[in-house]
């Protein structure tokens, strides 16, 4: 068969959400709406110390004074914040000693997602802290980590068990009043992950967390804090899938990374929130603030594969505070149907000899809009700072859009900044060439897309790269004859 633009378009539109199922687990949900009482109730429910409650309340008060930002290249119906329930936790919440004790239905859900804990446990070197509906349900490999002095637990647990660390670092990279959604998250964050790597320790395994939204109408407000102490190294993986949903779901996470002197953090994300149906109905709003701080000689690498969400608003950033620090951002953002993504990064060069690299790959199909928005800022003290940015867009069909908004601010004459951008289209001649070699159209698109995304896929840890490739295929192919 010839593969015309028309057919390609149709095929992409008929893709249905693979992970569209709903798990019926008894859960406890707060009444809808947000006020100081709700904020206090969340804090109380989680048994938090009073400093944390107070911190949340300050964030809440700041939030009430703020306005929802409108500068992003996306249009959507703003969420009604008084119609959202801010807390939802699976009701049966014992501490499990083994998987046998975990609610079988929950385990079944993981199996459907292809991330069964049994499998994960067997997979050498992967510890999984599963966050489902805002509360950590199981944590594995804790012991091995503990032997090295590594702390990897839910943020709620960290607030109780390691208050000195949390108190010192929470809000240190993303202040609670940083922006509208960060303030909201600071007030009501339900749970999330906490990780601390002690001085000089190289974390022996990839740390990973899976997020899911599973209760109708509960926004998810995850909070992640990763601290790599001097000379340490950690690779952290975050992956998300979400069930099919009619109404819009709000996801406003905050991720803070702290890389102290000579430390390195590699943070990888595979994101597959429900993108809405082919008419653009439903789907997750993903308004995330992710930022990392690099001290002297430190390095932070963000790698992300974004295939989901109806609306994405996300800029994993690096503040290169220390001299010789390095920031990297590798991203693949796929949009299809009516998805909208406004994503990119900010590289703030403060220290001398700081270096940043940005590789962004945008793939747009259907009627989607895909924007790259990036800021490279070289401050006056940042002598010999260097940046290299590359933004490539791949278009499928004639109704989608790709946009690039690069911002460059250089206040030091010694700065070296390079920016490259390309836009290309999957050609019928490429498809025919593949077909002639025995590769059908579906596989051909996967091959071409994977080739286009390769520089970023290569940055992902092995087991994640496979999953990411699969996601790209699911996101773009649909079912060909």
């Amino acid at each position, binding site marked *: *068969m010839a593969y015309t633009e028309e057919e390609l378009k149709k095929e992409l539109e008929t893709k249905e959400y693979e992970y569209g199922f709903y798990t019926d687990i008894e859960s406890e949900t707060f009444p809808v709406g947000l006020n100081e009482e709700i904020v206090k109730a969340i804090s109380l429910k989680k048994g938090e110390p009073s400093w944390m409650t107070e911190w949340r309340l300050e964030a809440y008060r700041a939030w009430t004074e703020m306005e929802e930002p409108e500068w992003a290249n996306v249009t959507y119906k703003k969420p009604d914040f008084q119609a959202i329930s801010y807390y939802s936790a699976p009701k049966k919440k014992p501490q499990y000693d083994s998987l046998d004790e975990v609610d079988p239905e929950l385990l079944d859900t993981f199996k459907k997602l292809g991330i069964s804990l049994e499998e994960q446990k067997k997979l050498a070197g992967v510890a999984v802290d599963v966050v489902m509906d805002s509360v950590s349900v199981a944590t594995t490999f804790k012991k091995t980590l503990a032997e090295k002095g590594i702390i990897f637990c839910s943020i709620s647990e960290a607030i109780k068990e390691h208050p000195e660390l949390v108190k010192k670092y929470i809000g240190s990279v993303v202040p609670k009043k940083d922006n509208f959604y960060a303030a909201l998250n600071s007030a009501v964050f339900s749970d999330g992950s906490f990780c601390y790597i002690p001085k000089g320790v190289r974390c022996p395994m990839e740390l990973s967390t899976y997020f899911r939204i599973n209760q109708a109408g509960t926004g998810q407000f995850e909070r992640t804090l990763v601290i790599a102490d001097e000379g340490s190294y950690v690779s952290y993986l975050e992956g998300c899938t979400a069930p099919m949903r009619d109404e819009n779901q709000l996801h406003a996470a905050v991720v803070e990374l702290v890389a102290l002197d000579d430390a390195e953090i590699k943070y990888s994300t595979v994101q597959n929130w429900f993108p809405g149906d082919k008419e653009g109905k439903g789907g997750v709003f993903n308004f995330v603030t992710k930022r990392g701080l690099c001290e002297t000689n430190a390095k932070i690498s963000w790698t992300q594969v974004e295939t989901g969400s109806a609306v994405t608003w996300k800029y994993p950033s690096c503040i290169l505070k220390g001299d010789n620090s390095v920031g990297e951002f590798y991203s693949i953002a796929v949009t299809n149907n009516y998805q909208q993504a406004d994503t990119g990064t900010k590289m703030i060069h403060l220290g001398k000899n700081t270096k940043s690299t940005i590789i962004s790959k945008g793939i747009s199909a259907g009627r989607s809009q895909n924007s790259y928005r990036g800021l490279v800022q070289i401050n006056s003290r940042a002598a010999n700072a260097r940046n290299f940015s590359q933004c490539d867009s791949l278009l499928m069909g004639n109704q989608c859009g790709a946009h690039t908004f690069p911002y460059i601010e250089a206040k030091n004459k010694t700065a070296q900044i390079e920016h490259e951008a390309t836009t290309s289209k999957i050609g*019928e001649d490429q498809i*025919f*060439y593949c077909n*002639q*070699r*025995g590769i059908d159209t579906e596989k051909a698109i996967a091959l071409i897309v994977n*080739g*286009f995304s390769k520089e970023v896929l290569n940055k992902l840890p092995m087991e994640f790269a496979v999953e990411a490739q699969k996601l790209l295929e699911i996101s773009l192919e649909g079912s060909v004859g």
Partner: protein
Amino acid sequence: MLKIENLHANVEGKEILKGINLDVKPGEVHAIMGPNGSGKSTLASVIAGNEDFEITEGSVLLEGEELNELAPEERAHKGVFLSFQYPVEIPGVTVTNFLKTAINETRKAKGLEEMPANEMLKKIREKSELLEIDRKFLSRSLNEGFSGGEKKRNEIFQMAMLEPKLAILDETDSGLDIDALKIVANGVNRLKNDENAVVVITHYQRLLDYIVPDFVHVLLNGKIVKSGGKELALELEEKGYDWIKQEATV
């Protein structure tokens, strides 16, 4: 092997092929020659199943089976290979990865398991030696930044790997210098056996010094107007196409 009967084909409503008949038997090499715009590349595209072209009459048969309604990948699975005149670039996909995918997709279509990695490796080594291909070449993105000669050599390398029953070489000699031409021709000759067949489409006689055809056909204005042995190619080289045009109009 390949039988073409009264083939008529259009592109965008315009008739390009106007009743082609061709019979290629196993073990044979046929050359199709003709001036620009005579329909040579269209014929190649139609055999391979490019649906920019519409068959309005007649049929293309491979081992007695009609190909007309088959998708290009299905024809490929049955053993049709086209060495493209202008091979496309696929950035980020290495030659090796592309070949691996092509071989395994074909095997899958035949209900076979994927080719084991060591077998694949052995084959790659063997065929790349045959075509004097540097190993480094295999890790480069398909056709990206390749010289004209590298592109053509890569086409023949793919042919060697895929071992088709019917290979159509569309202007494989264009863009090749004499050394590369010899390597490519030598590769084709070594791959040639009694079970497969080659159709060489070319402008010039030059390639036919190295890949010696059993039959030469002259395509003019969408029809084969003259067929003969290899000496016909030499005659064309010497006299050009005008005499054939005159003959055809008489």
